[in-house]
């Protein structure tokens, strides 16, 4: 998300009275507060799902969804009435315990037919019809259809969604999230009173162990109004220019000898436990297959934190070489930095070799065996894709705008960096895709990959000629940007005639389509039609690998649980742990890498444990007091900030502070002590406070089983005064 652009557009919209702004956050931050305009809705951490489902309850009770849109069972039907997305609201799901395909969508084979489609109850005939054939389907059908061998109980996706939503009343949802029923109704009313011109978004707030149903429900909200890909509604990121792809000039994607990786990811993601040998062996031996040793995250994606837990437990297999590059999982992953975890991390019998590529002694780098110095962001090449809130076509470019501070090495005289290291390793082993004859151009000619430029400048050439080629740089611009004197190996990386257009892109910091091109009539220009699923067959047919229970196919309110299903509130009752920690992004710190910037240290030297004034009063706590935050798994000292802008029962701890390495500690190099700078370690970090899941054997931080997301928001805690 681009915060700058988002802030600018929001403030503009609010000041022109085109937009109403409500901030739903336990932790009110300056900057989101436009005086007199912002409505703050203090929600309890990790209860966002209850608010969204409460809104949906109101929408169903008052029939405020866009029924005409939802009835469209396919793309064409939706297009015909002016939309650019459709849903599976009318698609029939088998809800028949006795049927072998229970929990799955009704398919032609269930009716003795062929094909791969879905069924709806045709609104015209009242009979089952293929979703491609009908122009409108029955929205809330719940009944029987005639199957191959008898009747089958079915219900529509929307019916199942509504049934899940109706498990609680609006009052109950209000009770859970700490927002009054009236207010929930008011937000829902506002949300549904603008047709398809509504949008939702979320970011770090989803890091709680009931995040999945919340996130799914949140994305469904605008779909109930038909908002996807509509002007004024929901938009995806704009596309990028071809860079690292099989581009118009060079093929940077494929190379000879290329391997297609295979096997299960160590993070236990995107794979069903039921397909492992572990499961099959247990079943063959007549043992209960559940629980698995660690949870399997069937719907997880690129789970770096889970890969770390796997490595520490040597499960499902051993990590032999761990490379940490431009990352810091020890600081960034909830509960990874705790005594029990560190003991395992230190053993070479668990992870034999740890290599870290870093510019400074980061928290993770401090546990490496070898450190490869890297280039900083202003010394490296990068082609940066579009992030959310910008919907036009663009790719930005970083290039070495200053001479890298790392020494030059090897036969190609390259500064030490991630790329230089990988090229050298690959060449020494004789791995494909690096060294001489590694890259093919559009004419079939082979080029080497011996330097960073050999790769990245070709990527810019691809960008430059993607579609209509960009113009060449002017002679004057060439001179004033210093691009007239670039090193000869930059020039050697591409054909001479490509250099002038490439330089124009470098000079301008990327290639950007005009930002007036957001819309195509009433649609978002770059939104390809999407199908939004109210019921997920994939989710409904996957199981929790600890308990064996099936997951829900449509979102329902789900309290936080340990992996074995024990309620977190039962394991750690609120009488003992009355607070929930939530984290936010500090304005003057980065994700985890700006603690070494003197200006930011001066402008904002520390963070606090932020607490509501009424909570503080009740406990007799004062602003500025030193306290210990104790959670069931860890504790940490910090200073209290008492203010109104924190939800009752919440402890706000902003991210980016409370570091313990990053140059803050003394380091011994060759026996010489280099004194650390303590200013880099001020404040308190919330991740080490996060819960360990003791219901799982092995060292494992509390995570949501389906997606593997962590317990960052909602950490149960109490406060013990120290002064």
């Amino acid at each position, binding site marked *: 998300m*681009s915060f700058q652009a988002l802030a600018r557009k929001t403030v503009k919209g609010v000041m022109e009275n085109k937009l109403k702004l409500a901030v739903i956050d336990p932790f009110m931050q300056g900057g989101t507060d436009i005086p007199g305009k912002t409505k703050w809705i203090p929600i309890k951490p990790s209860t966002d799902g209850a608010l969204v489902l409460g809104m949906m309850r109101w929408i169903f009770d008052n029939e405020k969804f866009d029924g005409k849109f939802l009835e469209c069972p396919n793309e064409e039907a939706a297009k015909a009435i002016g939309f650019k997305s459709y849903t599976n609201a009318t698609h029939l799901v088998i809800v028949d315990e006795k049927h072998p395909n229970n929990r799955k969508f009704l398919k032609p084979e269930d009716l003795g037919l062929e094909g791969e489609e879905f069924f709806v109850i045709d609104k015209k005939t009242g009979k089952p019809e293929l979703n491609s054939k009908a122009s409108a389907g029955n929205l809330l059908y719940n009944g029987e259809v005639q199957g191959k061998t008898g009747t089958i109980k079915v219900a529509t996706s929307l019916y199942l969604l509504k049934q899940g939503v109706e498990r609680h009343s609006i009052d109950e949802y209000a009770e859970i999230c700490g927002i009054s029923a009236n207010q929930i109704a008011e937000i829902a009313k506002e949300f549904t009173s603008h047709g398809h011109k509504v949008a939702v978004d979320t970011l770090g707030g989803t890091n709680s162990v009931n995040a999945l149903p919340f996130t799914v429900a949140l994305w469904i909200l605008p779909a109930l109004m038909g908002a996807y890909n509509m002007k004024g509604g929901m938009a995806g990121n704009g596309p990028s220019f071809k860079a690292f792809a099989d581009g118009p000039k060079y093929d940077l994607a494929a190379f000879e000898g290329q391997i297609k990786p295979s096997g299960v990811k160590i993070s236990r993601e995107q794979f069903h436990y039921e397909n492992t040998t572990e499961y099959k062996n247990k079943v063959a031996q007549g043992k209960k297959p559940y629980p698995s040793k660690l949870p399997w995250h069937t719907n997880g994606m690129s789970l*770096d934190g889970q890969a770390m837990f796997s490595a520490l437990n040597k499960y499902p297999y051993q990590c032999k070489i761990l490379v940490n*590059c431009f990352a810091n999982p020890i600081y960034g992953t909830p509960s990874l930095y705790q005594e029990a975890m560190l003991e395992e991390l230190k053993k070479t019998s668990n992870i034999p*070799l740890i290599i870290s590529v870093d510019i400074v002694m980061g928290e993770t780098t401090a546990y490496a065996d070898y450190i490869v110095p890297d280039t900083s962001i202003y010394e490296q090449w990068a082609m940066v894709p579009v992030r959310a809130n910008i919907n036009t076509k*663009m790719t930005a470019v970083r290039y070495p705008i200053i001479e890298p501070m790392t020494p030059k090495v090897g036969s190609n005289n390259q500064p030490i960096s991630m790329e230089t290291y990988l090229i050298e*390793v*690959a060449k020494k082993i004789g791995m494909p895709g690096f060294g001489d004859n590694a890259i093919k151009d559009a004419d079939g000619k082979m080029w080497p990959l011996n330097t960073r430029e050999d790769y990245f400048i070709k990527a810019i050439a691809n960008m430059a000629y993607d579609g209509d080629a960009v113009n060449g740089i002017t002679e004057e611009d060439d001179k004033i940007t210093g691009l007239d004197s670039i090193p000869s190996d930059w020039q050697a990386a591409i054909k001479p005639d490509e250099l002038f257009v490439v330089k124009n892109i470098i000079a301008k910091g990327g290639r950007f389509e005009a930002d007036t091109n957001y819309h195509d009539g009433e649609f978002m220009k770059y939104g390809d039609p999407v199908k939004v699923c109210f019921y997920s067959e994939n989710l409904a047919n996957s199981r929790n690998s600890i308990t064996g229970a099936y997951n829900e196919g449509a979102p329902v309110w789900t309290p936080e649980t340990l992996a074995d299903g024990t309620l977190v509130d039962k394991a750690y009752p609120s009488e003992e742990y009355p607070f929930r920690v939530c984290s936010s992004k500090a304005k003057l710190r980065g994700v985890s*890498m700006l603690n070494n910037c003197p200006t930011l240290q001066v402008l904002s030297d520390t963070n606090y444990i932020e607490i509501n004034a009424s909570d503080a009063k009740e406990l007799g706590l004062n602003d500025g007091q030193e306290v210990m935050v104790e959670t069931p798994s860890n504790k940490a000292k910090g200073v209290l900030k008492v203010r109104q802008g924190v939800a009752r029962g919440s402890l706000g701890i902003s991210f980016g502070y409370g570091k313990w390495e990053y140059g803050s500690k003394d380091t011994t190099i060759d026996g010489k002590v280099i004194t650390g700078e303590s200013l880099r370690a001020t404040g308190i970090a919330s991740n080490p406070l996060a819960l360990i899941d003791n219901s799982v054997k092995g060292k494992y931080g509390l995570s949501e089983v389906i997606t593997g997301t962590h317990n960052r928001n909602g950490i149960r805690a109490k406060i013990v005064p120290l002064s």
Partner: protein
Amino acid sequence: MIKLKRRTFLKLSALTVGATALGLGVTGCSKETDVSIDGFPDMPETLGQEVEATVDLQSGEVKINSDILVKSSVCMGCYSSCGVRAKIDKKTGRIMKLTGNPYHPKCAEPALPYDTTIKESYQAFSLHGDKGLTHRATVCARGNSTFEQVYDPMRITTPLKRAGERGSGKWKPISWEQLIEETVEGGKIFAELGDDTVIEGFRKIHNQDELINPDSPEMGPKSNGLVWISGGSYGRINFAQRFVLNSFGSTNFYGHTGT
């Protein structure tokens, strides 16, 4: 830090009114104009920086300071990837300051039309034709400071190998050649610490023919023993992916999604 007194600030802004050229930095104002105000204080060296260019407010003529280069880049202060322009001192090669890139739609609204020349783009920092108002390109306070990490005195520029147990904070510098040799070939690489364990390097782990866990063939080849953890999508992971996924043949490449 130098605090600018309100009175001084007022005098400075008064100075720019009616001036023929508007500098992009504070010292530029006093240098480029011959307006003199009695008792006007000399600006401390640390507050003002030499300007990169001056723009004539009427004609729009841009005069570039040949001692300074302005180069475009992308900020990673919070992973939002705003476009920045860096002011670089030609003599020292150091970054002096960062501002927003007016061509970049995240930083200016509307962005400067792409065909505008770099020379003309300097006008977007001035008030000529109101360009400085319409195409004002900004970065946040974080974005202004990201270049300071480049010059961190604690920055690591030499390959290091641990010289005590993991996490002990003891290191020794090693040569580039030793770094490559030991991480590729492995062996008893910690023998000098009294640890005779044989560690497998990249060469041994790069193996598509043997299984990483012969009892569970679904886990895939031995190459999966390489686990690569990378930061968010910051525009150079494709290079690492080429190595890890498609050349080394490990499935274990991680961005930053779950944490």
